[in-house]
């Protein structure tokens, strides 16, 4: 498989043959077949959505005039988008025969004036495009050094906005979607009609992406053909379900098909595995967990990583997703099945404590959606009123949105849990879990919209009707008192290092009694520098590098300590003589 960073030249995967470069001056490029995957069920696309159409063969690039060793090559999978960041994206595709690879892109549909190539000859192509601008639409094509194979106007993407920005975000979320057929098609088309030219920014799959065993052919039929159009425009961030099997050999299972940010390429903390990962999009931190194959115990790698990842993020919204739901009475029962219980007992408490907002799961082939919930780690019969942060319906046109507090980040402020496993089939069950506001045995998908401090989720059924919705609002900053210590800091120490007197500057967020002292590395106080009431704002004090007795102190590392109302800030001071 090619895995080539842009601008870094060509790379060759282990064991892959490389054809010799053909001189551009030799011969003519022969036929280049342009293939774009199309809807196989013949369903009509909604008005306003770009239509797919094969383009005529094009001959582009520096190899023009050379004999084309890849004549007859077609794109049999993709192109599809992975691992988007504000400045980069991964483009993947499969060809019918081994070829080299080239991606061309640009800001105008007809002018793809930047390119990156790989001379590695393979059928599995993976090119990392870098140097992009945030929040910008790009058009692209894929092909070989001898011509374009796919690149019609539907091959376009928008890079994510800068991390932390409050840009509108739309995600399309499907679960248990991997059974090709009329239900899958109607769910897909309902969303395409609903979103129209708005499209989506992210595309999430909640597992069981390809029935029945997640084999290569099943992924082709259940994912890459029916979702060809979304996949070439919206970055897919999947998780793995119990039907997404793993197989020996190359290029034949979930982990081979997808390029996922194991090393925090798109934000978060590096997990070291594609099984679970996190990424940032605008002001949302997404966490994808693996409830299928990874250790779910508190001491396991995934849960250890989750704690660190959630602790580190300062994003306004945190959305977690995985396959096995912690709460469900659909075709699977969260009171009796071990995977579901383990996620509820080991993962949900961390999400509660570290302030997640929304959990998305599949597995049960139904739609189920909770109220704003916390602290519920036992059986469904153990639900108590203290666990209900807000038991209303959360609907704009019902009881009104759920309201969550903002700073400081509040533990256990409540999470809404959804099960959306009916994107290609429905499955029954009692559908009577007591935490659920809505439980429906109908096909559909989720539409997530985040707009600044407002999060909306809609369950869109296969008829295109919004069959449930809820809204979560983060209350205004002014409505919650800020942490009084925020902004209290040591601004600087100069000079660094110092041969004599040292000037220390610090910022006080509010007036109060301030103590400034110097300590040595063993924690012994060497000198008092200041002790008295001071107004808010930036202050400066001078230490003459002498101890309490007035004697010059020896060279070494010391620590300046500034205290304000029980808060302490410490900075290192290096003295040389």
């Amino acid at each position: 498989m090619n895995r080539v960073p842009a601008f870094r030249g060509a790379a060759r995967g282990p064991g892959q043959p490389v054809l010799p470069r053909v001189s551009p001056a030799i011969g003519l490029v022969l036929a280049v077949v342009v293939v774009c995957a199309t809807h196989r069920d013949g369903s009509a696309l909604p008005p306003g959505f770009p239509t797919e159409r094969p383009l005529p063969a094009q001959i582009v690039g520096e190899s023009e005039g050379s004999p084309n060793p890849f004549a007859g090559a077609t794109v049999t999978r993709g192109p599809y988008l992975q691992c988007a960041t504000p400045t980069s994206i991964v483009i993947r595709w499969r060809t019918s025969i081994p070829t080299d690879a080239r991606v061309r892109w640009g800001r105008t549909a007809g002018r793809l004036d930047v390119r990156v190539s790989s001379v590695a000859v393979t059928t599995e192509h993976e090119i990392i495009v870098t140097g992009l601008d945030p929040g910008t639409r790009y058009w692209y094509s894929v092909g070989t050094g001898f011509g374009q194979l796919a690149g019609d106007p539907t091959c376009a993407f928008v890079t994510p906005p800068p991390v932390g920005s409050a840009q509108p975000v739309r995600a399309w979320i499907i679960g248990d979607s991997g059974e090709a057929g009329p239900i899958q098609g109607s769910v897909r088309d309902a969303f395409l009609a609903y979103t129209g030219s708005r499209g989506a920014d992210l595309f999430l799959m909640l597992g069981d992406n390809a029935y029945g065993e997640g084999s290569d052919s099943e992924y082709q039929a259940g994912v890459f053909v029916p979702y060809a159009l979304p996949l070439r425009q919206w970055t897919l961030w999947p998780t793995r379900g119990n039907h997404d099997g793993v197989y020996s050999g190359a290029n034949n299972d979930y982990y081979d098909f997808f390029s996922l940010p194991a090393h925090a390429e798109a934000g978060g903390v590096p997990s070291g595995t594609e099984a679970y990962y996190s990424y940032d999009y605008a002001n949302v931190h997404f966490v994808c967990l693996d409830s299928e194959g990874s250790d779910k115990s508190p001491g396991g790698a995934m849960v250890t990583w989750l704690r660190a990842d959630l602790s580190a993020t300062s994003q306004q919204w945190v959305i977690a997703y995985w396959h096995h739901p912690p709460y469900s009475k659909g075709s699977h029962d969260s009171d009796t099945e071990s995977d579901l219980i383990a996620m509820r007992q080991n993962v949900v408490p961390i999400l509660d404590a570290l302030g997640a907002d929304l959990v998305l799961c599949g597995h049960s082939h139904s739609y189920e959606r909770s109220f704003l919930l916390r602290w519920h780690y036992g059986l469904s019969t153990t639900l108590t009123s203290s666990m209900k942060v807000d038991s209303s319906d959360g609907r704009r046109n019902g009881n009104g949105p759920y309201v969550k507090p903002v700073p400081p980040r509040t533990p256990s402020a409540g999470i809404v849990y959804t099960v959306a496993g009916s994107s290609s089939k429905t499955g029954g069950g009692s559908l009577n879990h007591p935490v659920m506001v809505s439980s429906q045995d109908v096909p559909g998908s989720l539409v997530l919209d985040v707009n600044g401090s407002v999060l909306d989720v809609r369950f869109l059924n296969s008829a295109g009707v919004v069959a449930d919705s809820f809204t979560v609002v983060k209350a205004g900053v002014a409505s919650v008192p800020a942490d009084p210590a925020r902004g209290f800091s040591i601004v600087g120490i100069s000079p660094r290092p110092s041969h004599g007197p040292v000037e220390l500057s610090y910022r006080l967020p509010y007036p109060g009694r301030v103590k400034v002292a110097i300590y040595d590395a063993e924690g012994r106080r060497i000198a008092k520098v200041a002790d008295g009431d001071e107004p808010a704002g930036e202050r400066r004090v001078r230490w003459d590098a002498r101890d309490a007795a007035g004697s010059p102190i020896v060279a070494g590392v010391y620590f300046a300590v500034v205290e304000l109302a029980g808060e302490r800030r410490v900075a290192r001071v290096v003295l040389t003589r």
Partner: protein
Amino acid sequence: MAAMLSFTREAAWLASWEQHPGLGTRERRSRALRRTGRRHGMEFRSPSGAGAFHDGSLGGRVSRNRVYSMAIRFRTLVILFAVALPGAEAGAHMAPHARVDALTLDLARRPDDWRLWIERAQAYLEDGHPTAALSDLDRAEALAPRRPEVPLERGAALLALGLATPADDELTTAIERAPSDAEAHGLRARARIALGRPREAAADFQRAVELSERPSPDQFLEWSRALAAAGAGRIDEALRVLERGLATLGESFALVEEGVRLECAHGAYQAALERIERHPTAWGSSAARRARGADVLRAAGREIEAQAEYSAALAELEAAPHRHAARASSLENRIHIALRQGPPVAAGP
């Protein structure tokens, strides 16, 4: 209706059987895949395909292409019946207890099929009934005495019952019959941990990693922990396993943190600090790295230095360009608490 349902299950079984000899329904294939190393967080994909049911041994990988076209024909049949019979659809996606029920029906018609007995044992095990699983495995063994799947599943069931000694015996038998089964090594390692034999467990964990096509952070963690449990003399070895994991997987927070934790537990605070510095990207941010360093300094009794690091981490967080005004990170809150809770520095002159 019952006859049609039965026929549908049969068709599904045939479709799957054509694709994966040795299996029952498509769900069973999935279960078999899970069985190859999914238990308790292990997920192995042996280069040899170890773990997939296959005539002869656990070591062969099924060729799908050979029988693909026939399978498609059967699958079409299955889909047709699945559409016609809503109840039958669940056969491929059942909850464990429902799968037990379905397999019980299958076994009533084909009681001599050892695969079905193993499948039901797996379903029982997943449903939390290891004793029932053992009973089914006895039946499977009577029908197929030399199959490696039987002792493997029996070992898993015995482990679930907390019976580590017989589990170890069964898993040893499984390994004798299929030496390249990564899951069998991983399960036996756990049995040996339970038996207080961490050195032998470590050897099994190592073998499991070596047999896995795609090792996971969990596997390196377990291997390292087994070595650490073998005594203070093997701490360096345990740390080397973590380094090997990082070399194999790339940066992984869980492995770096395990090394820091292990070194701190043995008083090697300076080594822990150096480890933190060696892995600057493992923490997600410079502030998180500094805060972890501050934790280690505090544990080492270097309080004033710890407070300096906490302060620096806090200053970085407060100055971060992407910091959302409406949300402090949990890290930020934690550092505030750490600075408030830190022991007072010593009074001086």
